[in-house]
């Protein structure tokens, strides 16, 4: 059992109960191309393609829904618009364990000087880490 780090909000429930249907919105051919780009074995059955397309659609709506929930929570009353911004998405990705695979796809934006600071820290940090891992990797007999 994997418990998400952030407590589940009541907004977690699915948006607008949808009807099951055999129709897809996304183009199957495009989804096939995407799947092919990662698969080492070629064959994709129609059923799998259909399921994958549906899945991707659900995922899009899931992301949008969750990001919107976050937007609504952060709205500070004073007439802020009901718009989901990039920042909300990157926050969402940062907070939810099952979105971890998107960390590098939707990274949190940082300022240039913060980035430069990070680079500097890293450069001085790397040598330290190397020393540590060198002494720490002693195998016991």
């Amino acid at each position, binding site marked *: 059992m994997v418990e998400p780090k952030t407590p589940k909000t009541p907004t977690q429930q699915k948006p607008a109960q949808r009807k*099951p249907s055999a129709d897809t919105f996304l183009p199957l051919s495009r989804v096939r*191309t995407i799947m092919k780009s990662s698969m080492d074995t070629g064959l994709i059955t129609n059923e799998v393609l259909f399921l994958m397309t549906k899945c991707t659609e659900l*995922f*899009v709506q899931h992301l949008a829904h969750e990001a919107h929930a976050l937007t609504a929570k952060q709205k500070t009353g004073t007439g802020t618009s009901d718009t989901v911004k990039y920042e909300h998405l990157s926050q969402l990705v940062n907070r939810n364990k099952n979105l971890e695979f998107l960390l590098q796809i939707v990274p949190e934006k940082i300022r240039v000087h913060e980035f430069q600071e990070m680079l500097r820290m890293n450069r001085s940090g790397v040598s330290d880490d190397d020393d540590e891992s060198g002494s720490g990797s002693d195998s016991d007999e």
Partner: protein
Amino acid sequence: MVERIEDLNLPNAVISRLIKDALPDGANVSKEGRAAITRSASVFAIFLTSSATALAHQQNHKTITARDILETLTQLDFESFVPSLQQDLEVYRQMVKNKKESKASKKEANADISSGPAVAEVPSE
């Protein structure tokens, strides 16, 4: 194979529509946010495919099945998708079955022309 990276993008218009359906009226997504969602969707599909492929290989299967995908979803902590997908899959399978049957009956009807043209829905592809 993929020639250009754009080939991996999902169509903007469809994504916009899906997003709109998922949000309450009046809510919006910024352009940048939409682009991030579109990208994420492609990566999700790739991620799920390769995870499902790994699962299939573990069980010595060469091709992934619908079950592999549903199982993988649970493993990846997206089990909330599974019930609706299962329903969709059922409808889809029924549709395929109906199509097959109507095709078969059409063939039969064509074999003995006396029964006249079979009324069958036009396949939508």
